[in-house]
């Protein structure tokens, strides 16, 4: 397990030099912080019982309500901050399921090869071809709309990318010298996987996990927007669903429509930047190519 820790540590230390990874990490940290400390950060408690009158519905941003109010007269900013919790929780847990399934399938397929690999990869190919969203829509709609359901459905539909990535990485690691040496001294398969293969596959998996999280959050917000989520737990997608289907457009309540969306963009962009940044660190590309534009090649002073 030393290998795993060492690999992760070197990955983190390289983070500092990559602007994308830094920016992404910063954005995510802010989002997570807001979600964790919601009760302290939010100006109001969205679940508190207060008296609402018709005038309170869809009011424009004001000092009392920085992001205005929504269709139920509630403060949009407060809902926004608490909504971060729901979106992030669903995103993280769903992607853990996906990465777990995908990683397992990938390592098993890559390591054991042969018929096992064939079968697993065929399964992956078929899953890839089936469009995610319609299937998710059907599964979630026809079972009980709840957060747990959504997490589960997104999780079991989102593992194909990870599986392919992990498999190809396992294949390349498998042929390395130290694996052959380990076999030569009689190490068992599980031991080889745990001690040698996994530590080398892990960094790429981490970069991939971040991207899977972003996809999961996008998918959750879409399913919620389509009305397939639990209406009592206001995720950002659910806020958008209410704003859209309850006259937000016709009331001109742009704040109720913009804010939750911006939240989604913030978190997803953070994940995307971090994920791409990590990928750059792990697979560094040359600084230049043969057609790179640069300063003049001939520098010497005038002829003579």
């Amino acid at each position: 397990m030393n290998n795993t820790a060492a690999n992760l540590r070197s990955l983190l230390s390289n983070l500092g030099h990559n602007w994308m990874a830094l920016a992404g990490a910063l954005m995510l940290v802010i989002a997570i912080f807001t979600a964790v400390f919601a009760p302290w950060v939010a100006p109001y408690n969205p679940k508190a019982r207060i008296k609402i009158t018709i005038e309170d519905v869809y009011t424009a941003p004001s000092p009392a309500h920085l992001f205005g109010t929504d269709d139920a007269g509630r403060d949009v900013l407060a809902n926004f901050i608490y909504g971060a919790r729901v979106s992030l929780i669903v995103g993280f847990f769903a992607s853990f399921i996906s990465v777990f399934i995908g990683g397992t399938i990938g390592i098993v397929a890559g390591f054991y090869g042969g018929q096992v690999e064939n079968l697993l990869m065929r399964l992956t190919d078929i899953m890839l071809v089936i469009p995610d969203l319609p299937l998710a829509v059907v599964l979630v709609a026809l079972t009980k709309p709840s957060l747990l359901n959504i997490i589960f459905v997104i999780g079991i539909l989102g593992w194909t990318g990870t599986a392919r990535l992990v498999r190809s990485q396992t294949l390349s690691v498998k042929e390395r010298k130290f694996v052959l040496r380990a076999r030569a001294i009689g190490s068992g398969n599980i031991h080889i996987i745990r001690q040698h293969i996994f530590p080398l596959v892990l960094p790429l998996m981490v970069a991939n996990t971040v991207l899977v999280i972003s996809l999961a959050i996008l998918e959750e917000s879409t399913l919620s927007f389509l009305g397939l989520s639990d209406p009592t737990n206001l995720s950002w997608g659910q806020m958008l669903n209410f704003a859209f289907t309850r006259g937000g457009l016709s009331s001109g309540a742009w704040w109720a429509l913009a804010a939750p969306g911006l939240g989604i963009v913030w978190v997803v962009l953070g994940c995307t930047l971090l994920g791409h940044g990590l990928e750059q660190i792990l697979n560094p590309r040359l600084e230049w190519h043969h057609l790179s534009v640069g300063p003049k090649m001939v520098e010497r002073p005038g002829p003579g």
Partner: protein
Amino acid sequence: MKRLFYLLNRLKWALISIIFVIVLNFFLFRVLPGDPARAGVRDPRLTAEAQQALRVRYGLDKPVINCFTSLNPLKLGNCLENPLDTQFFIYVGNLLHGELGTSYQTGRPVAAMLGQALLNTVLLIGIAQIISILLGIILGLLAAWKSHTAIDFGVLVASLVAWSLPTFWLGIMLLFGGSTWLNLPVMGKMTVGADFTSGFAMALDVAQHLLLPTLTFTIVVMGEYMLVMRSTVLEVLSEDYILTAKAKGLSTFQILKDHALRNALLPMVTIIALNLGFTVAGAIQIESVFSWPGLGLAIFESVGRRDYPVLQGAFLLIAFSVISANLIADLLYSYLDPRIQAESNE
């Protein structure tokens, strides 16, 4: 000859996928909770006899498949009696005739309803995909060529942001902006109840309605294409044959066109094909926001109404389209890449 084998192999897998989807499709709607009959028969005033008559009409009185009378709740039945007179085989039989069943909601044949919806979705997706593929390729190529300059940075950031936008949210924002500031029509495919003096006038009206949804789609999909093209071209431009081309005295434009582009387009073809699943997801979102009468909207509406035959048919159509598109992409790739012949197994 080898290429022929490759194509036949791909065709075989496409067929297996389709069969898998058909079976999955069928059982999915029988396994999920909710009696289809009761779902299609919402009216609580119907007598038991009327309900039973409806079940017979929709063929729901027959056993689901050989040993199972129903799957949810699980009820076993006779394994040997009339194996072909089950819902499954009737379903498959109908499929082969191009029949997708009858809608619970409207009583009209599903195939007819979805046929028009499919065309509408293809119209929307088709135009948007073409524009975003062209723009994505050009901008990605440009960004990679001018790597480490401001253009590259701009394209990179723009792609990442575009990729991170939720499709439906971008649609809402554009909808808001378009209707508020540009007075663009925003719902549906055509202005309701309008009389068109000519085909051209009608086409113009449709085009106006098509503008915002297409713009939404293009922005979202273009992000991914730009990113992939950029990274592919970066790799290609580091290859030795680019230096050879430069040494031959070819102009930069010629090198980009004849050497870089040709090699970079190969992985792009695969990406575009893989992207089609995502495209469908985008279609559902955009059609819901703009009420565009396509397959996506059909799915969305029939989910709410528990209109299973429509759902089943739409799902099948979508999966079928994606599988076909992937097959076409495979064919295209094998045509473009001369090295495919050398590969024995995929």
